[in-house]
């Protein structure tokens, strides 16, 4: 790892100022950033630790769940309030990586990173979440812009994420057995944002909505409604773990499991 300067600002304004330095990089749980730095894939001048900004906590109202950017996966998974309002979201947080990753990894870090196989992007897109930053509020539909790419500017900090409470929702993932990242993960939701299906792990461009599945489920919310609905493998990932064709097949299998789980 190349050396860098470490900063732990105590206010959002100070953090934004620190991030304005050339090649500055924010750090949340470090579960992605530190492995990246170890591989020398990134050479930041300053690492700006966001843990002093008070961005943790969960607020649940009648129609939304708002989670502070620095809230860990473990805290979301264990939250009785999240389990009651959006059980699918708590369950998703509880199957990210392993216990030690969940103790430190955060929702803000996961959404900022937008790994094409990460879990939270599927929830944010399917539920129509709003990502609130130090500058503005961004709807999930405008936020995800391709693998590892988001609408965030270099000095923009996610402060919280707000999820509308759906009538029904579930997340199922077909895990890569070694890394536990999604080979294919499907979040299905029926709620204020409509009937939405978001798929992670499969697409070359990161998380995406599946128009065919959404139309079938809007007409008939049942696993059977998805039988035979095709997924084109043209834009899907092919790697040592699975071919694009296999991932296309998995999309349908995993989506049917998710609808069955949502009830």
């Amino acid at each position: 790892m190349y050396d860098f300067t470490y900063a732990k600002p105590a206010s959002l304004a100070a953090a934004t100022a620190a991030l304005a330095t050339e090649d500055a990089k924010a750090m949340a749980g470090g579960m992605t950033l530190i492995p990246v730095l170890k591989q020398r894939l990134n050479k930041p001048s300053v690492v700006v630790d966001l843990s002093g900004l008070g961005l943790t906590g969960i607020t649940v109202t009648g129609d939304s769940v708002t989670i502070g950017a620095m809230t860990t996966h473990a805290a979301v998974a264990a939250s009785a309030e999240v389990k009651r309002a959006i059980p699918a979201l708590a369950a998703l947080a509880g199957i990210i990586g392993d216990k030690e990753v969940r103790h430190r990894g955060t929702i803000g870090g996961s959404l900022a990173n937008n790994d094409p196989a990460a879990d939270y992007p599927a929830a944010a897109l399917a539920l129509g979440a709003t990502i609130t930053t130090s500058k503005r509020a961004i709807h999930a539909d405008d936020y995800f812009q391709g693998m590892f790419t988001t609408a965030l500017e270099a000095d923009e900090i996610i402060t919280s994420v707000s999820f509308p409470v759906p009538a029904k929702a579930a997340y199922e993932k077909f895990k890569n057995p070694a890394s536990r990242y999604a080979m294919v993960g499907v979040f299905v939701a029926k709620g204020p944002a409509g009937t939405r299906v978001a798929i992670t792990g499969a697409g070359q461009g990161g998380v995406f909505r599946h128009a065919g599945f959404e139309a079938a489920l809007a007409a008939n919310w049942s696993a059977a409604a998805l039988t035979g609905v095709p997924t084109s493998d043209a834009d899907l990932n092919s790697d040592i773990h699975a071919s694009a064709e296999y991932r296309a097949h998995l999309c349908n299998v995993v989506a049917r499991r998710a609808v069955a789980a949502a009830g």
Partner: protein
Amino acid sequence: MPQVTLTVNGKSATVEVEARTLLVELLREKLGLTGTHIGCDTSQCGACVVHVDGVSAKSCTMLAVQANGCAITTIEGLAAADGTLHPMQEMFREHHALQCGFCTPGMVMAAVDLVNSNPQGLSEDEIRHGLEGNLCRCTGYHNIVKAIDAAQGLMHAPAAQ
């Protein structure tokens, strides 16, 4: 150079580090606590697990500066002052839950956290899933799972407190 003040196994320490120094490097190289192992470079094997403010964490994926002000417990701090082994250590010995021993410090620290955070008790399946962050190349896990199952009985027994 940044200075880090932290408590390790009950003792306070102030150490000069580089910003890029990992917590595991601080423990092993600055404090000589070589019980915490480094098994991979990818945050996957769990050989480096310690407790940070009572919660298990991979010390190879944490900067030393992030541990400023924290209380750390390593495998060296688990046994009682008189040398009596922690019930988890005792059960690892009893059930032959190690062969080469390389994964054992991280395995034991992760297992103690797992049992502590599940006072209602864990099924065999939950123990296996709870160890997703720890790899063992020798044992095939069966005896590790048996040891943790036995230890949870001892750790939750009123006399163990």
